[in-house]
């Protein structure tokens, strides 16, 4: 396989695509443009024929891994199977060619589906209404924080700026809260990731805006005291935000709304099976309870009998728009199709089997890493390679790289930060028992090698297109674009 950049394959004068001859004869000139408005240096884009472009990117695809190639137990990411039909759905011209500024009368199909999706997501989370605008999970978090702000402002409680976030939380939580204008206070958690109730107590004052939690928590445990926590926060005048990245665990079994949360974001690209696309696009709808509904972003979608329309006038206290148009619609439509196929029973079964798979794996694996732990987890669990590091010099990173050579995408590593040498494993419900068994065997094999020939693991990966990459160099002398001179 060639290792060249597309720019290095360029030859002056090649074309990979041609346009219809211009209908406006003699029109295609720069003359319209006064000199001052003209570009002076042309953009050095590559020049290739169609087949060369196809080969370049098909070749790149061969150097990439996706769920369709195998197991992807990336904790916190819910890498479940992406149903193929969803990809066809969004390419229907009725969806793909709809312009965002068409009138609502000409977009009834999509509006109906989006309205139905909000309804379904409310049903799944136990909330009242929501917005589909946020483009990703972090954007949903940020949106929810703005809702908190508006809520307090409207109550003239604008001194409430403190947001509590467990130390095990995903980095986007503190970043979103901070960027939304809040002060972040880190809450300690116990070894199983549960909220430290005593520490919580200390913060229940009138500067408290609220708390950002995920449940099951980052270690995959269900926060049993959640109702108590909710009561305490509410009594102190604060609000509760639910990070929905872990929602897959409790689909059909429990709902953030019933736990006492005021706002929820969902990761459509995790829980609802839409492909992650190598980093996005995702979608991060926010659902809220009664208290926050007046502040939801506009435009909202309203149903009047059989017709659907954009509406803003009923939301005078709205925080406004969070997305240029209405979010990642094509991602949301995939989720609509997924929900129609799963239905109420299927979705609950997905939750059950996601948890079954996690517990099955956990039973197999905890004894390899630590003292056997027979307690229940939910959709994921976290192992620590601390002992392996101490005894054999084998880190979580080494284990991850060894997995690459064995054709499996590694778990999330070094997250949460509260667990040393963390390996965070989330199998999801779409994996078969055989896949889990073979993962166990593979890990055992790696750990055997760790004892016998630790060097072999330090050398991994050896079967990938490249071996370990110098991260430090990348960050110290950043090369972030190609240049001809090089």
């Amino acid at each position, binding site marked *: 396989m060639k290792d060249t*950049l597309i720019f290095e394959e360029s030859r002056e004068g090649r*074309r990979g695509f041609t346009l219809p001859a211009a209908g406006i004869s003699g*029109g295609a*000139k720069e003359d319209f443009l006064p000199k001052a408005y*003209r*570009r002076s*240096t042309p953009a*050095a*884009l*590559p020049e290739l024929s*169609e087949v060369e472009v196809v080969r370049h*990117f098909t070749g790149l695809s061969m150097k*990439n*891994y996706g*769920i*369709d*190639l195998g197991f992807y137990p990336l904790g916190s990411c819910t890498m*479940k199977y992406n*149903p193929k*039909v969803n990809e066809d759905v*969004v*390419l*229907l*011209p*009725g969806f793909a*060619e709809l*312009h*965002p*500024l068409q009138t609502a009368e000409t977009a009834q199909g999509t509006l*109906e589906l989006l309205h139905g999706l909000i309804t379904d997501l409310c049903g799944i989370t136990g909330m009242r209404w929501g917005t589909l605008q946020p*483009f990703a999970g972090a954007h949903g978090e940020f949106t929810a924080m703005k809702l908190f*702000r*508006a809520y307090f402002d409207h109550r003239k409680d604008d001194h409430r700026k403190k947001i509590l976030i467990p130390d095990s939380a995903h*980095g986007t939580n503190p*970043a979103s809260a901070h*960027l939304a204008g809040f002060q972040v206070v880190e809450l300690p958690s116990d070894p199983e990731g549960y909220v430290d109730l005593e520490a919580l107590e200390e913060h229940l004052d009138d500067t408290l805006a609220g708390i950002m939690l995920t449940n099951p928590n980052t270690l995959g445990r*269900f926060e*049993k005291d959640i109702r108590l926590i909710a009561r305490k926060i509410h009594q102190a005048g604060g609000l509760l935000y639910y990070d929905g990245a872990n929602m897959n665990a409790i689909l059909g079994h429990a709902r953030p709304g*019933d736990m006492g949360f005021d706002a929820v974001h969902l990761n459509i690209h995790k829980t609802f*099976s839409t492909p992650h*696309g*190598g*980093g996005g*696009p995702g979608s991060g709808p926010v659902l809220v309870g009664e208290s926050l509904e007046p502040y939801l972003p506009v435009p909202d979608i309203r149903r009047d009998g059989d017709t659907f329309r954009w509406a803003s006038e009923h939301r005078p206290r709205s925080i406004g728009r969070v*997305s*240029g148009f209405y979010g990642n619609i094509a991602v949301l439509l995939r989720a609509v199709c997924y929900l*129609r*196929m*799963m239905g*109420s*029973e299927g*979705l*609950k079964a997905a939750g059950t089997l996601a948890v079954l798979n996690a517990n099955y794996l956990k039973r197999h694996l905890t004894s390899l890493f630590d003292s056997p732990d027979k307690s229940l987890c939910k959709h994921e669990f976290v192992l620590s390679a601390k002992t392996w590091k101490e005894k054999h010099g084998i880190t979580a990173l080494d284990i991850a790289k060894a997995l690459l050579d064995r054709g499996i995408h590694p778990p999330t590593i070094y997250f949460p930060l509260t667990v040393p040498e963390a390996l965070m494993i989330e199998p999801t419900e779409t994996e*078969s028992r055989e896949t889990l068994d073979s993962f166990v065997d593979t890990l055992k094999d790696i750990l055997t090698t760790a004892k016998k020939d630790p060097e072999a693991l330090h050398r991994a990966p050896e079967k990938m297109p490249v*071996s370990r990459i*110098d991260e430090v160099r*990348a960050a110290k002398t*950043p090369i*972030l*674009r190609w240049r001809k001179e090089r």
Partner: protein
Amino acid sequence: MHPFLPHTDRDIQEMLDFCGLQKPEELFADIPEDVLLKKNLPLADGLSEFEAFRLLEKTAAKNRIESVCFLGCGSYDHIIPRTVNRITSLPQFYTAYTPYQAEMSQGFLQAMFEFQTMICELTSLEVSNASLYDGHTASCEAAVMALQACRDRNKVLYAETLHPFTKQVLRTHFYGTDVVLKEVQAPSGCFSLAALEEELDDDTACFIGQSPNIFGFLEDYTGCAEALHARGAFFIISSNPLSLAVTRSQGEWGADIGIGDTQVFGLPRFFGGPSCGYIAATEKLTRKMPGRIVGQSVDTKGRRAFILTLQAREQHIKRHRATSNICSNQALAALASTVYLSLLGPEGLKETALQNMAAARYLYDRLTALPGITGYAGNPFFNEFTLQLPKPAEQVAAEILKRGILAGVPYKTLDSRGSENLLVVAVTEKRTRDELEAYAEALQEVTA
């Protein structure tokens, strides 16, 4: 069994046994009784793939798609090479997660490095990232960059001629913070240096302009960079990147940050999303960049290799002190745009841009020759312009739609304070001469 759930009854039983459990319900024994959901989720029953597809196909047909589309304002009807979707449909790309494991993700990482390079080339700026959500939210990220780069300032200026939705997103973004947003007036529908200078002070972190602006007109930023830089403020320009093939780029105007949306590069309209935001900046702003950045490095054998870099900016390391909260971005859409640009190349892109410009000019001349119809502002434009109609634009558009033509965006639908007679019209290379003539005829009839 459900096709997405591989567990047979036997699997379930044996796996439960192994876990020391009897029934699946016991897996949820740790959920307190008062939280455990006792009823079914209020969803319809599951459908087979065929039924679900049919249902959605029928629902899609309730949308009215017109092949003759003059709508723009941030989403355009361009020709999309068929190859683009073939590439983004490769399973190794679309079913991958963010490339945390670089050795297993060289394909996507390299493609993003190529995307970054192309964005730098188009904007004439030095550093780009691997995409943002969209062109609107990109303005927020750019403003935050500027604010962070001059810590003591809290004022963000933006042009009146910015997309009204971008303004709304900016307002929401900074709501509840100590950042002050201020609009720089553009009474003539175009940027005015004098108006900027009126607002510019030592609290100003940046000014955000847009060119082509919301009315389609190209802004004349002569002197703008100098004025801003003299006051220590940053200059941010949002541009339709297709226009950059022929018009003066952000870097060429002296901007520090260039932003926009690559929807015009190979992405369907999709009712607004996914599209793909881009951001590029001068080198000194590198470590203030939001989002993922791919860098070039070497592997242990000295071979060129790509990896997510400068992660110290990001939330999973910096937590609440990160430059941005962005985690998932629009990678697959960025890949589509990279393929699009690779196919068109510099000549193809320029030809596309020129065709757009010529067709828009032609239609503009045709339409403004009609009685009672005038152009809204005087600057040159790229592929979009605004008309002043003798009647409310919504009414005119509704009439023209009866002839199967989406006539343009009534400005008032973007900005309720706007004049109701303004119609923003976009013309792409996809519009044929016959379609332009049909439009002119329709407009004449409707406004007669």
